[in-house]
């Protein structure tokens, strides 16, 4: 074991792991995978900025902080139903508080035909075998420290399956809630989503907080879309201002499958999201639209990696970053068009706005093409608000802050224009404006 790995962070999790009583104990392949991932994590610890994937996100301060594993009182933490409500949307919902499943807050009755929605803990107690492929994975890259940790320590999460051909009309909601507890704790959530052939689903994933806390949350989500399946994934991240949140979302798209992600990253102190998509089948299509808005001293890092592996696959990504005060944004968009993925189409645009002299955004588009007849376009910019537009608005009477907010919201808004649900679009707009000084 390297000395570097012996940090308060690693040591606290070593102790926590030894004491943990995780669901699914005794399932041989799961025990083995948890054990191996834990060992890998303990041996290597957290990556430093020499690791390319963590170049702009330093974990030094995090490494000095110990965390308790889980929240013994998670089942009884008060959460107001109103805090979870989303206007105009009430359908199936799965709620986790500090990593623990909350049946009392979830809505799992009357599920539409073809939809199966269960907490992972329950699946592990019943028929875990279908999850083996996802849960038995070993994370071999040192940059995947949090995925290792998650694999070793996650006890719950959502298991969502849509049967072949089922088109689920109502959006399904996944709510990940952080609640204040006695100390700073770490929770880990593991989600598995599978859409059968031709299935259709809209999933709204929300990260919320019921109060201020400095917890660490890790989350790993796997999305598998079988042939012709269609997923609309909406992600609203409003973690507590002090929270550390590290997520990895992997999408695997088979032939003619289509996934669309709309992401709004607003909360958290240290936030990271690795988005990895594999366009594995011919004609698969992956669309992402996102906005990240670090302010105060927030650090929000999005790493998008798309791999075109089959004929005629398409990806289209539009991201906007807005950093205010001492906020720091990081965006990496890496697209690989692998050999054989001929006739693919990949585009990526990331435009960023700095609202203060102390804000910073690092953006890095990368494009590697190894196939023929590929259409690819990508670009990234970092700029400031248009002074002429600002003056125009102010000259008509809008106060400076309001004019800036209006222009900033406009800069971001175009990203969500193609969201078909008007109520949801309006909600995103309200959240976005709420993030701006007024």
């Amino acid at each position, binding site marked *: 074991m390297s000395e570097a790995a012996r940090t308060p962070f690693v040591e606290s999790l070593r102790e926590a792991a030894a004491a943990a009583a995780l669901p699914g104990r005794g399932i041989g392949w799961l025990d083995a995978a948890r054990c191996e991932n834990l060992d890998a994590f303990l041996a290597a610890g957290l990556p430093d900025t020499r690791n390319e994937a963590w170049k702009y996100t330093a974990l030094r301060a995090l490494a000095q902080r110990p965390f308790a594993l889980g929240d013994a009182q998670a089942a009884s933490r008060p959460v107001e139903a109103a805090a979870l409500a989303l206007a105009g949307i009430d359908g199936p919902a799965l709620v986790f508080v500090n990593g623990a499943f909350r049946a009392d807050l979830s809505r799992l009755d009357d599920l539409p035909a073809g939809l199966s929605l269960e907490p992972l803990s329950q699946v592990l107690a019943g028929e875990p075998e279908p999850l083996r492929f996802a849960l038995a994975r070993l994370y071999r890259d040192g940059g995947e420290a949090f995925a290792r940790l998650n694999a070793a320590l996650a006890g719950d999460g959502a298991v969502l399956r849509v049967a072949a051909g089922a088109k689920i009309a109502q959006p399904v909601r996944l709510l990940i809630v952080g609640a204040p507890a006695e100390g700073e704790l770490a929770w880990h959530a593991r989600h598995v989503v599978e859409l059968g052939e031709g299935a259709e689903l809209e999933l709204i994933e929300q990260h919320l907080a019921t109060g201020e806390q400095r917890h660490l949350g890790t989350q790993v989500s796997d999305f598998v879309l079988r042939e012709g399946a269609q997923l609309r994934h909406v992600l609203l991240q409003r973690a507590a201002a002090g929270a550390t949140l590290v997520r990895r979302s992997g999408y695997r798209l088979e032939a003619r499958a289509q996934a669309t992600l709309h992401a709004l990253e607003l909360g958290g102190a240290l936030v990271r999201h690795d988005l990895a998509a594999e366009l594995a089948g011919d004609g698969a299509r992956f669309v992402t639209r996102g906005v990240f808005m670090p302010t105060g001293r927030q650090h929000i890092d999005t790493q998008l990696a798309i791999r075109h592996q089959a004929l005629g696959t398409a990806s289209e990504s539009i991201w906007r970053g807005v950093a205010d005060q001492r906020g720091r944004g990081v965006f990496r968009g890496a697209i690989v068009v692998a050999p054989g993925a001929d006739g693919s189409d990949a585009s990526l645009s990331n435009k960023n706005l700095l609202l203060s002299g102390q804000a910073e955004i690092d953006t890095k588009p990368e494009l590697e093409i190894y196939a023929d007849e590929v259409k690819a376009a990508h670009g990234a910019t970092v700029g400031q608000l248009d002074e002429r537009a600002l003056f125009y608005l102010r*000259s008509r009477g*809008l*106060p400076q802050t309001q004019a800036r907010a209006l222009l900033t919201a406009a800069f971001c*808004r175009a990203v969500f224009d193609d969201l078909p649900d008007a109520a949801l679009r309006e909600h995103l707009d309200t959240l976005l404006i709420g993030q701006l000084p007024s």
Partner: protein
Amino acid sequence: MLKIENLHARVEGKDILKGLSLTVKPGEVHAIMGPNGAGKSTLGNVLSGREGYEVTAGSVSFEGVDLLALEPEERAAAGLFLAFQYPVEIPGVNNTYFLRAALNAQRKARGEKELDSMQFLKLVREKLKIMQISDELLHRAVNEGFSGGEKKRNEIFQMAVLEPKLAILDETDSGLDIDALKQVAEGVNALRSPERSFLVVTHYQRLLDYIVPDYVHVLAGGRIVESGDKSLALKLEEHGYAWIAERHPEFAGQALVGERA
């Protein structure tokens, strides 16, 4: 209403206005003419408080208050309006939403009650009679994809809604064909009143056939070099700006240039 005294202003280290004085009383229409580059837009920008336009000497009082001490939005709330020579396109900001926000911000600053959306719509309908704008343009993003003429009409429409005390129209005639010019002039004339004053900035005399000014001034070399009634505009039309250069040999060699009007 407006009293400009010995105004000096600098842009990017370059002195543009060099001792400009002008007094405008309520209800008056003053035309300001001058060759390209004379500083006409600079004057409008300085009066409305644009950043980067540094006043190095002189004073401007507007209804008794020191205009130069106010932020641009405070000047707007005080009743100043600038119709831009080049109205700015603002993608993502809805034209009508913006106008209501601007009006309400002004009203709030003046301690007046804000208008709800019904009251605002009623006001818009009324003002459309003064300056016709298509529904489609009203609901588009501010000036986005508007033709040159549509942009100018939108400026006048906004002026009608905001009801300023002093409006500066910066080359509102440029880029308009004769029909559009007439419509814009009609809109402006409909807004003339004993309490409202106008500074009509133009390069050409043509606009002044339709918006008849009380006074005409020639701005050259950063100062008002000639003042008179509307006949001055005709004289300028006839002789061109070279005539100014002849009458003011102190400008010899300077960039007030004798471009013909």
